[in-house]
């Protein structure tokens, strides 16, 4: 890893800095039109380090969302295992260690921004005082402290997605799982949120798994970009992004950035 981040390391090998270990993972879905099955993912091996920002990038049908859903325990593996800090995804989910941001903001229309962010903490049964304080902290983190009273329909798509991020962070999860969170937004809002996400990540210090089909976005954000190819879904390359941090949008104009984007683009197989 190129950026300065102290990882707790022990000689016993119990903590090897690996947050998520994916071993020989395959996921098959029944085909709608025949009795056969479709290989969404085959033989995936991947280690995700603690505190790392990793992107899963690929075209539609490459299984990137399925991989994310398998980590989140929203999808069961057909073969192989996923371990998160030595535990199963199910154990981690039950302990509320995942913060998930979906493609659409998935906000509750009947709750204000504040109450949306508050909702996971209500489920955890946290005392009101603590909830109120955390909500303010999280909204401040996504620059929405002044809009807490607004209902989702009164906010723009970008604001809604930021509320979604604040909500995902409110439970203090170990791992932030993001499924194409900015793909429905316009280019300007997306770039702004990309930069904001990096600053949130540098403050919150979470492991982030970020699914996208936008190559430039994945290069800009990530420590490593995992390139997935379809039919069957498989890892065709893992590209280390050694751009210096903190990164700002200007980095996109550098030759190094362009070269990395090309490397990722040329890693796709059979598209």
């Amino acid at each position, binding site marked *: 890893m190129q950026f300065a981040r102290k990882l707790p390391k022990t000689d016993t090998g119990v903590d090897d800095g690996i947050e998520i270990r994916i071993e020989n993972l395959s996921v098959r879905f029944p085909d709608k039109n025949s009795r056969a099955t479709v290989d969404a993912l085959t033989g995936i091996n991947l280690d995700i380090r603690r505190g790392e920002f990793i992107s899963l990038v690929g075209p539609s049908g490459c299984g990137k969302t399925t991989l994310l859903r398998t980590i989140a325990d929203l999808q069961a593996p057909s073969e192989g295992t996923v371990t998160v800090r030595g535990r199963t995804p199910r154990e981690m989910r039950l302990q509320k260690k995942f913060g998930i941001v979906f493609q659409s903001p998935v906000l509750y229309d*009947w709750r204000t921004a504040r109450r949306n962010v508050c909702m996971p903490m209500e489920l955890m049964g946290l005392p009101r005082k603590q909830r109120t304080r955390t909500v303010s902290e999280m909204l401040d983190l996504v620059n929405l402290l002044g809009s807490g009273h607004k209902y989702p329909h009164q906010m723009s798509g970008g604001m809604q997605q930021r509320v979604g991020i604040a909500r995902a962070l409110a*439970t203090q999860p170990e791992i932030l799982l993001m499924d194409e969170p900015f793909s429905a937004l316009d280019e300007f809002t997306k770039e702004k949120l990309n930069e904001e996400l990096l600053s949130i990540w540098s403050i919150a210090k979470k492991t982030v798994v970020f699914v996208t089909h936008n190559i430039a976005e994945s290069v800009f954000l990530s420590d490593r970009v995992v390139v997935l190819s379809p039919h069957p879904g498989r890892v065709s390359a893992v590209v280390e992004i050694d751009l210096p941090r903190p990164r700002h949008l200007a980095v996109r104009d550098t030759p190094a950035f362009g070269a990395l984007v090309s490397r990722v683009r040329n890693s796709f197989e059979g598209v």
Partner: protein
Amino acid sequence: MNAIRWKKFFASPKWVTVVWVLGLILVWEIGATVVAGVKRTPENVLPHLYQIIGSVFSSQKANSTQTAIQIVLSNAWITLMRAGIGFALGAMAGFMLALLMSLFSAVEKMIFPYLMMIQMIPILGMAPIVLAITRDIDKSRIVIAAILTFYPVATNTLSGFKAVEREKRELMFSLAASRYDVYRKLLIPSSLPYLFTGLKIAAPMAITASILVDTLQGGGGLGCMMSQSLKHAMTIYVFWQIVFLSAIIGILSYQLMAWLEKLVSPYRRSGGDFPATDAKEPTP
């Protein structure tokens, strides 16, 4: 300035309403004149509109103690109370059943076909059966109003539970929410618009049903007075006043539900449309 105002008026939907109302009045008056020409009873069965309106303010006694409008209003109260109690009971039962059907799919499979059958029995066919069971006309009126309310509330609420987006359920799942919390925090609040659709359909129906069941037996109520009036035991104006009053009550009951809906869902009050949720299928 005036010309512009007129132009605006003609372009507005109000103009359509005015034409409709004028047309209806015209048809009514032609009908009233024709019926008056062939009448065999002392009173015109289809009176002119001004006669009906006049009868509302008339101080002439329709029976030994009350004027027409006094009879109508006092009986309207009786009918409304029965319809209201039946509606409240039916709405509660419908909501509880929708909850049960959503919690246990076996319950849905067992009960749903019979719900539809009950709905298909005409009220007038159902009324004697209910009367035979309850042995009390007052109770059976309430029960029938409840049965009619029950079905639209149950089916609408159930489809409300089913309409919750997959991602919203998955968010609850990923937070390891208990079943109780999933219902309390997600399914019930998001099904409220559906529940109110059911209530808006059911409210006028409960009133209509209550009036219809009134006609079967004595004991007061709008329907009871209607049939007496039609049989010339009472002035025909009672009948026509009830027709208009029950139409008004029906509309008001709908409006009351719409108002209640706004009261409990402040997120809709500002009038803004819901953002169109992303129709994009998540890639597998």
